[in-house]
């Protein structure tokens, strides 16, 4: 196997889509060839460095979307890691810093602003929501069944067109909630990195290999301003979001009661005033009847300084 073919296989491995035969082939070629193991390690490391670089850029621009500055980029790289480590070592002499490092969950807060993420209380409204804290959207209902969280779950019933685009195609069953983020902003440390993580669980309880495939989506969009007229602008307003993130999972059934977990993260710009949370089930051949497709346990979590202990130590 040449390097290009190997890298192609590795990209599929990173994407989590290797078949058992392909996984066997990947392992066989690495077992027999030290150069391929080195290429694997170098590619993984380069991917991690790229991930880290884009994140630093986003933090510097203060927004989930990369807004590349005009001047020279990536100046952070010239900062020696040894110096960062030295800062941490100095910081560790403070008892409060030791506490911060040994309690990373102290930087994570599940937000109550997202209401009824386990679908225990309220019915699902129709149309894009007019106010924060309610689930509303296309035809869906709340049913009792073995839940991921609590006793009830959301059941996707039928795709619908968007309210602001009634003539548009009904390609997916979309349920929304507007989340008011303004109360959070007062509690944020100005220089801290804040990340919002949206997670949800989905269940495709159709028999295995049922056609069509269905894509479950959990999306979050952050906006500034007033959400009161968002119902009249959705989905055309989505590209105007300050930041967005999505988690997609395509299934052919066969979950047999085993819930799938999806999550996505966005950096929270200081000007973000509200979030639009979107849960969707999209049949990939239309028209199709939605059957036995569920969502549950939707969570919105605020994480500050999420990945770098040294940053916590420097507070």
């Amino acid at each position: 196997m040449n390097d290009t073919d190997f890298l192609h296989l590795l990209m599929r491995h990173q994407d989590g889509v290797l078949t058992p035969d392909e996984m066997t082939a990947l392992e066989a070629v690495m077992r027999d060839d030290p150069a391929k193991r080195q290429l694997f390690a170098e590619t993984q490391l380069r991917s991690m460095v790229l991930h880290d670089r884009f994140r630093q850029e986003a933090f510097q621009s203060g927004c989930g979307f990369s807004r590349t500055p005009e001047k020279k980029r990536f100046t952070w790289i010239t900062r020696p890691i040894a110096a960062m480590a030295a800062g941490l070592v100095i910081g560790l002499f403070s008892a409060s810093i030791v506490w911060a490092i040994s309690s990373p969950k102290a930087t994570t807060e599940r937000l109550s602003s997202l209401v009824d993420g386990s679908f225990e209380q309220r019915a699902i409204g129709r149309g894009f929501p007019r106010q924060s804290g309610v689930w509303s959207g296309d035809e869906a209902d709340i049913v009792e069944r073995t839940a991921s969280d609590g006793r009830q779950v959301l059941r996707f019933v039928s795709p619908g067109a968007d309210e602001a685009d009634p003539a548009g195609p009904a390609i997916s069953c979309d349920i929304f909630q507007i989340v008011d983020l303004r109360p959070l902003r007062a509690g944020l440390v100005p220089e801290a990195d804040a990340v919002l993580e949206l997670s949800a669980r989905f269940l495709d309880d159709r028999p295995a290999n049922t056609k069509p495939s269905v894509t479950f989506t959990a999306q979050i969009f952050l906006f500034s301003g007033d959400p009161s007229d968002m119902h009249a602008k959705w989905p055309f307003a989505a590209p105007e979001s300050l930041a967005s993130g999505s988690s997609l999972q395509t299934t052919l059934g066969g979950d047999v009661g085993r819930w799938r977990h999806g999550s996505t993260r966005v950096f929270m710009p200081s000007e973000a005033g509200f979030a639009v949370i979107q849960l969707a089930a999209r049949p990939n051949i239309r028209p199709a009847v939605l059957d036995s497709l569920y969502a549950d346990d939707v969570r919105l979590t605020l994480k500050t300084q999420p990945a770098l202990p040294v940053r916590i130590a420097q507070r």
Partner: protein
Amino acid sequence: MHAPEDITATLLAERLPLTAFFASVTRDFHLAEDVFQEVCVKAVARAETFETTAHVMNWARLAGKNRAIDILRARDGRYVGLSDEMLALLADEWPEKSRVDTMQEALSQCVEQITPNNRELLRLRYFERRNCTDVAAIMGRKIETVYQALARLHKTLGDCIRTRLQTDSGS
């Protein structure tokens, strides 16, 4: 025996190589970072048990790998990925900090040379946590084209980094 601050400094210096190794299991760089955080906390809590820096690193790779597999099993009901045998083989040869330092400097220059489209492809894949199906939909490409483009980009960047390092060492 190491002091907690020595352990943390060691792990912090090796953050990117360790996280890249954990990502070989998780296939998710954000999740790999969470695993790294947990490993740091556990390592500091048992600092007195480590005798050498190599001991710390070997323990961290093993603990992180096991934790990553546990997380995937809890999340997906099973672990599908590289075998324990292969992960052990990779761990023995995994690059460390000095390799990252040189790679970062060279990569910063090499990334400047790729096209905006390719840069967006890398950003969607490695920062926005998009899978290749999603990337293909966003960029209006077929999924196989995305895999090929990513493979070519990694080869281009790898070649560029090697050339720059050779040039630097020769000058």
